[in-house]
């Protein structure tokens, strides 16, 4: 989806390419669907508040309508034995896609672009987050919610980066 947005934005001269990539970085660190973030920002830049509302509506409506239609159709097909058979092949694919998305996100996060190697700081942060989670599961016998984990990880990132700063690594 992002390449399509990029082409549209550049061809309308709404943003320059470097502005676009700069903002994409912001989108990745703000909550919510990236497409909605982009639509809000570009819409606001072009037409103020109303522009951002219309841009968000524009990016949401097609998928909203399509999904409602599909949900209606799927309801009547869900007991069909061929649909069930297809789903039994699709479920492991979805699990694999998500595991891979997590792995490649992790790899791109911990690899350091400037030094062509691994970023030790981020590996330390990742391991800290993982250890916090497993301690909560195995020692305190309760799962940390993902919201709590995200908030803790923000502090872990802050603490570990500042530690590395003072150690001058």
């Amino acid at each position, binding site marked *: 989806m992002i390449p399509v947005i990029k082409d549209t934005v550049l061809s309308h001269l709404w943003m320059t390419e470097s502005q676009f990539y700069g903002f994409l970085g912001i989108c990745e660190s703000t909550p919510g669907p990236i497409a909605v973030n982009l639509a809000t920002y570009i819409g606001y830049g072009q037409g103020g508040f109303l522009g951002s509302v219309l841009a968000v509506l524009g990016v949401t409506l097609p998928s909203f309508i399509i999904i409602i239609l599909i949900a209606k159709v799927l309801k009547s097909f869900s007991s069909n034995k061929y649909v069930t058979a297809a789903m039994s092949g699709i479920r492991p694919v*979805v699990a694999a896609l998500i595991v891979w998305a997590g792995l490649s996100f992790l790899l791109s996060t911990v690899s350091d672009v400037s030094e062509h190697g691994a970023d030790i700081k981020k590996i330390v942060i990742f391991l800290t987050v993982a250890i916090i989670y497993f301690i909560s599961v195995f020692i305190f016998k309760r799962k940390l919610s993902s919201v709590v984990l995200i908030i803790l990880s923000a502090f872990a990132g802050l603490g570990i980066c500042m530690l590395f700063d003072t150690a001058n690594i």
Partner: protein
Amino acid sequence: MIITLFLTFFKIGLFTFGGGYAMISHIREEIVEKKQWTDSNELSDIIAVAESTPGPIAINLATYIGYKKAGFFGALAATAGVIVPAFAIILCISLFLDGFMENKYVSYAFEGIKCAVAFLILKAGIEMYIQLKKNLFTVAVFFSVLAALAILDFFSVSFGSVLFIALGGIAGITFFIVSSRLKGSKND
């Protein structure tokens, strides 16, 4: 119900950093584990639909789950819930906080959040695999898709995930037909 849907997806939208896949771990937690509106396998079907249709995955997921729980207005409430936090925060950023992201400490905190997001996506995928109805066929599909993705990535080629979903569907139907033939011939 409509208000619960809106609030649930508002919370999910507020804590989804890094796009659709990151949202899946929140959805699993809120909708499968806490509210039990659906189970792990059905969520996997919904994700397959969301992946194979145009539009942002997060919107597709919210619309589908909202529709399933409370019809058209449920879909509307869930979708609005996931959009409003993103919309409001970006609006604030473009209004006041131009230098916000350049702040050193803010960027440090986001380094941490990125690592947590990677962890949460991995966790969601592995949990999905664990809750799969496992037999030789599903395990083989899981590992061959994972291997294919790794090999393709190594050569910097990427096919859309829709292709893998379609192949998985075809494999599922083929396996069903072949195995029911085999059973049939045994019974004869």
